[in-house]
C-alpha cells in the first residue's frame, strides 16, 4: 500500500509540470503573467495560442520532417544494433573483442566534437538539405549495440545450437527466434532512439538550409524570441504541447510491448 502511495505521489510530481504547461497553453497572456498562481485556465476553450502556432509556423510540415527523421533513423538503429549485437553475442571470430571495444569506446566521444567532421562528410556526400543527411548520423549508436549485446548474452546458446541442428540458418535464427523473444529490448531501444532523435535541434538545423526542411524543435525557437516581438509564453507552450504528442504516442503505443515481453518471459519460466 505504501509502495503504491509513493509511486502515485512520485508520478503526480513528475507529471505536474507537463499538466501545467498544457494548462498555460490554454491561457491568455494576462492570465499567465500574474503574480498569483493560476494552475487552471479561468475559462475553457481559449485556443488563440494554438492558432498562433499553426498560423505563424509551418508546424505540421516541421513535425512531418521530424517524424520521418526520428521514425526511419530509429528503425534503422534497431536493425543495425540488433545485427551487431547478434554478432558480438553468438559468434567467435578474431578481433571480436577489439571491435566491441571500439563500439564501447565510441560512447565516450561527445557528439559535439564530431559535428565539423560529420558536416564535412555529409556535405561531401551531397546530403545537405536531404532527409538522409539529417538522419545518417543517427543510424548507429554504440549504447544501443551495447544494451542489445548484454541482453543477447543472457540468451541460451544451446537454443541456437538446437535450431542449427534442425537446419535453421543464422539469419533465420535471428529473424524467427532471437528477435521475437527480445521484444522488450527492441522496444526500449526504439522508444529511446525515437524520443532522442525527435528532440534533436542542432544537427538537423545545420544540415538543412530551407524552411521546408526544418524540424519541430525549430518551430518552438521561432516562437520564443525575446527581442523585437514575440508571441508570448502561451504560444511557446502550445507549440511544445503539439510537438510532444508524437513522442507520447510512440511511448504509449510501444509501452505494452515492454510489459508484454517481460510477462511472456515470466510465464515461460
Amino acid at each position, binding site marked *: 500500500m505504501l509502495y503504491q502511495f509513493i509511486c502515485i505521489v512520485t508520478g503526480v510530481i513528475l507529471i505536474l509540470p507537463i499538466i501545467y504547461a498544457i494548462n498555460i497553453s490554454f491561457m491568455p*497572456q494576462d492570465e499567465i*503573467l*500574474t*503574480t498569483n498562481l493560476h494552475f487552471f485556465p479561468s475559462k475553457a476553450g481559449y485556443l488563440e495560442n494554438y492558432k498562433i502556432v499553426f498560423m*505563424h509556423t509551418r508546424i505540421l510540415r516541421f513535425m*512531418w*520532417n521530424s*517524424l*520521418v527523421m526520428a*521514425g*526511419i533513423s530509429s*528503425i*534503422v538503429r*534497431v536493425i543495425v544494433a540488433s545485427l551487431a549485437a547478434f554478432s558480438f553475442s553468438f559468434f567467435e571470430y578474431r578481433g571480436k573483442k577489439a571491435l566491441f571495444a571500439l563500439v564501447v569506446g565510441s560512447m565516450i566521444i561527445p557528439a559535439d566534437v564530431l*559535428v*565539423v567532421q560529420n*558536416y*564535412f562528410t555529409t*556535405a561531401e556526400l551531397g546530403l*545537405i*538539405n*536531404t*532527409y*538522409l*543527411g539529417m*538522419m545518417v548520423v543517427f543510424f548507429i549508436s554504440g549504447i544501443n549495440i551495447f544494451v542489445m549485446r548484454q541482453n543477447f548474452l543472457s540468451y541460451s546458446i544451446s537454443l541456437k545450437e538446437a535450431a542449427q541442428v534442425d537446419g535453421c540458418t543464422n539469419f533465420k535464427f535471428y529473424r524467427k527466434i532471437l*528477435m*521475437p523473444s527480445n*521484444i522488450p529490448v527492441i522496444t526500449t531501444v526504439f522508444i529511446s532512439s525515437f524520443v532522442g532523435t525527435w528532440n534533436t535541434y*542542432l544537427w538537423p*538545423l*545545420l544540415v*538543412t*538550409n*530551407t*524552411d*521546408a*526542411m*526544418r524540424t519541430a524543435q*525549430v518551430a518552438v*525557437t*521561432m*516562437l520564443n*524570441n*525575446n*527581442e*523585437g*516581438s*514575440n*508571441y*508570448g*509564453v502561451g504560444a511557446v507552450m502550445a507549440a511544445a504541447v503539439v510537438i510532444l504528442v508524437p513522442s507520447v504516442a510512440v511511448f504509449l503505443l510501444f509501452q505494452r*510491448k515492454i510489459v508484454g515481453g517481460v510477462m511472456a518471459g515470466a510465464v515461460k519460466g
Partner: protein
Amino acid sequence: MKKLLALLLCGAMALGTAACGAGNEGKGGTGSAGSGQASGDTQEVVFWHSFSGATEAALASIINEYNEGRGKEKGIHVELVYQGYEGTDKVMLAYQTKDYENAPDINVGLTSTIPAVMDMGWTVNVEDYMKEDGSEVTKDMFYEPLQQACTYEGQMVAVPFSNSIPLLYYNKEMLEEAGFEKAPETMDELKDYVTALTVEEGGEVKRYGLNMQVKRYQLVEFCVSQGEVSFFGDNQGGREAPMTKIVAGDDGTLKTFLEKLQALIDTGGYKYVEDNINEEFAQGLSAMAIMSSSRMGTLDELMPGKYMTAYLPKVNADDAGGAAVGGSCLNIFNRDDDDRARAAWDVVQYCVSPKSQYTFSTASGYIPVNKGCEDLDEMKKYYEENPQYKVALDQMKEANPLSQEPLDLTYNEINGIITEIMLEFCQGNLGVDETVNKIVERCNDALDEYHSVNG
C-alpha cells in the same frame, strides 16, 4: 512479433519513400536556399537571418517587395532563410569544410563576430563597394556610431542592420506616484530612485526598484560610457587591431562602475538576476529595468502606453561617452562568384534604404540605420506617436562614436566569465578590487588562449 516487424518494415518503407521525395523537394523544389545558382536569367541570392515574429514579417515584406520590383528588373531573386542564432556558426562551418554549395550570400551576424567572420576568405569588405563611383549606399549615410560599430582594422567591413542600444525602462505611473518627474540620469540618482520605488512587506521585497543582471553587455556599456572616451579592451576595443587584453581594469572604469553598483546593491531594492525581465517589469514587479532597445516591441505588447524609456544612467555626472550600440550587421560572402556577390550587394543596399528601414524599424524597435529615414514624414509621425523609440535614436546620436562594444574574439567565453564573477560580486562574495582583478585576469587568460591557438 511478425505483425510488429511487418509494421516496422512497412513504416520504414513508407517513410523512406517520403524521405526520398521530400528530400529532393528540399534540395531543388523549394528553391536552392544553399546552393542557388543563376537559373536562366535570374541570379539567386540566399539571405540567412535569425528574426522571428513581427521582425521576420517586416524583413519578409521588404524582400518580397524587392523580388517583385527591383529584383525582377535586375534579374535577381532573394531566398530568405531562417537559421536561428546559429547562422554565423553555420557559415563558418561551411567555410571550414569548403562547402561552397551550402553557404549564404548574405548573413545577419552579431557585430562582435566581425573579426572571426572577416578571417574567412569569403567575406566581402563592403567598404570597397561603398567607395565605388555611383554606389547607392555610401559610408556617410550611416550614423557615425554605426559606422564605427562595423569598423575593423580601419575599414567599415559590414553593413549595420539590426542595431539597438541599452535603455532605462521605467513604469510611468510608479515614478509619478513616487513624486519623480523625470527618469534618473546618473547612477547616484538611480540609487535614490531605487530606494524610493522599492516596496517591502514583512521583510520581503514585493517590488524591486530596478532589475538588471550585469553580464558582458551591461558591464561593457557602463565602462565605455565613462569619461570622454573609454575602451573595454586594447587596440580601441579590438577595432584597430585584434584585442589582446582588457584595459577597463587599468583605466579605472571597471572599478568606478562596481563601486556605484555596490551602492545600488546596498539599497536592497536592486534585483541583480534576470528571470523574466520583460514580464516582471510588465507586471509591476520592478519599477525600472535596464534592457536593450530591441525589447520595446515586446513591451508594447505586454504593457502598451504604460512605460517610457530614458538614456542609460551615467556612472559619473560628467561622463560624455554615452552608450554603445550593439546588435547585428549584414555580411556579404563571395564564393568565387563576383556577379552573385554584386547581386547580394544590391539586395543589401535595398534593405538599408530609408523606406526599408522605416518598415524594419517600426516593426522591430531596432534603430533605423540610415540617416535619411528620420527625415521621412511617416517616420516623424511614428516618433511623435511613439516617443520611446526616439529616445533610442537620440541616445545613439549623442554618444561618442568611439564608445563601442569590444570585438572581443572570444565573445561567449568572456560573457560567461563576466556573468559568473558579477553574480558572485552581487551576492557579496567578492569585493570591488577582487572582482576587478578576477574579471581582468580571467578574460585576459581567455584572450591569450585564443591568440596562442589562432596565432
